[in-house]
């Protein structure tokens, strides 16, 4: 667990709005998420889940409103330092098709100043050593997803943002992913996942933040920090 006050919420959103021309993707969103909490952003397609995740990953700037991560302004001077603590996996795994899994991870590792042993550990942890030397273009969606997850986890992020991580995974891979994520949770990582078909990943469920048409419908944030979970 990174040193740093556990009391500071991992995510603070106040009055966030995101407009794409006439389309209002997010409307006046405000909520807080504790550190080491798990939140599933649920809602139909187009509800604004992906946009919210991209804003939390500081990839997209909100049209209005304030975003604070770990007590710091996500679009202020500490943005670069904050980015080092965020892992993001979008709908696209974000890997270069012509490069092999290993080459992709080596490149992403260098962007984060991370050593090779971290890559080896992730390859084994996500059971993708067998495809490490293959070009990403040739891999199935399941393998590409896990390779993308490895890329997102390279910098041992404190905040892990995953967009539809379960889609395209078979049952065995999905439960493997679920076990892996719960271990990350226990290690103190704050998780925010987006899914349009909320599957029940077993004991992982903490809070559910449901969105519809860009508006926050409800936030059942049962503050399930690692200690209390059954």
């Amino acid at each position, binding site marked *: 667990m990174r040193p740093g006050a556990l009391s500071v919420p991992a995510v603070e959103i106040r009055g966030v709005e995101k407009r794409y021309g006439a389309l209002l993707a997010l409307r006046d969103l405000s909520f807080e998420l504790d550190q080491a909490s798990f939140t599933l952003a649920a809602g139909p397609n187009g509800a604004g889940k992906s946009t919210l995740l991209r804003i939390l990953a500081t990839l997209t700037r909100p049209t209005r409103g304030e975003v604070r991560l770990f007590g710091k302004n996500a679009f202020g001077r500490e943005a*670069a330092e904050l980015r080092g603590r965020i892992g993001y996996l979008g709908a696209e795994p974000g890997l270069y098709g012509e*490069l092999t899994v290993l080459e992709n991870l080596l490149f992403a590792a*260098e962007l984060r*100043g991370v050593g090779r042993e971290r890559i080896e550990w992730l390859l084994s942890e996500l059971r993708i050593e067998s495809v490490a030397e293959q070009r990403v273009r040739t891999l199935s969606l399941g393998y590409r997803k896990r390779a993308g997850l490895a890329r997102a986890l390279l910098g041992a992020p404190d905040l892990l943002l995953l967009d539809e991580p379960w889609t395209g995974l078979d049952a065995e891979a999905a439960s493997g992913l679920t076990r892996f994520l719960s271990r990350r949770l226990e290690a103190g990582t704050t998780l925010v996942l987006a899914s349009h078909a909320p599957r029940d990943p077993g004991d992982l469920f903490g809070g559910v933040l449901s969105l519809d048409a860009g508006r926050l419908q409800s936030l059942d944030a049962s503050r399930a920090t690692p200690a209390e979970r059954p």
Partner: protein
Amino acid sequence: MSGARVAWAVLRKDLLLDLRSRDRAGHMGVFAFLVVALLSITLPESPEAAGAWVPALLWILLLLTSILGLARSFAAESEAGAVATLAGVACDRGWVFLGKAGANLIALLALQLWVAVLAAVFLDVRWEAAGWRAAAVGALGALGLASVGTLLAALSVSVRAREFLLPVLLFPLVLPVLVICARLTAESLGGDPTPGLWWGVLGLYDWVFVLIGYFVFDHVLED
């Protein structure tokens, strides 16, 4: 997180992609070859008549060919959905710009070498007379095209009709590189001398646009 490592990683990754998927290099090489061949056929026979025009034509050819390379320079990112990977670096995103511009610079230098060979063969340009001066002008010009070109390529990657838009955005801004480099190249080949001031203006141009690219790229990678 040192930015230089990030820039170096981005540059190496781009070169690795260029070597592996070779289509960018192929497109530029074939296009340049075709145009030089056309030039050698259509230009008037007498060398001294053509001589005055050749440097300007070569630089215009370099500009047109570089458009092919620049338009592709963010294609790998957008196809792979990897813009987020670049945007998520833990340092100032300007370093990503420097890495990308560096890779484009190397591609343009390689293109210049190829065009120089073609010019020597088809347009019997005697580069040995020019020597280091022609190379220096080429390098400064390539840096100018690479810095402005990379920034505008990043701008237009997510915009409609970018094949049309990139040249329209780029050409007015790189006119100074074109004009100055054509004159300095002509001078190095024995043409009429130009004041040394123009080397300074070319260098200043490169410096200004590398700086602007660095400071502005933070916003460009945000969508």
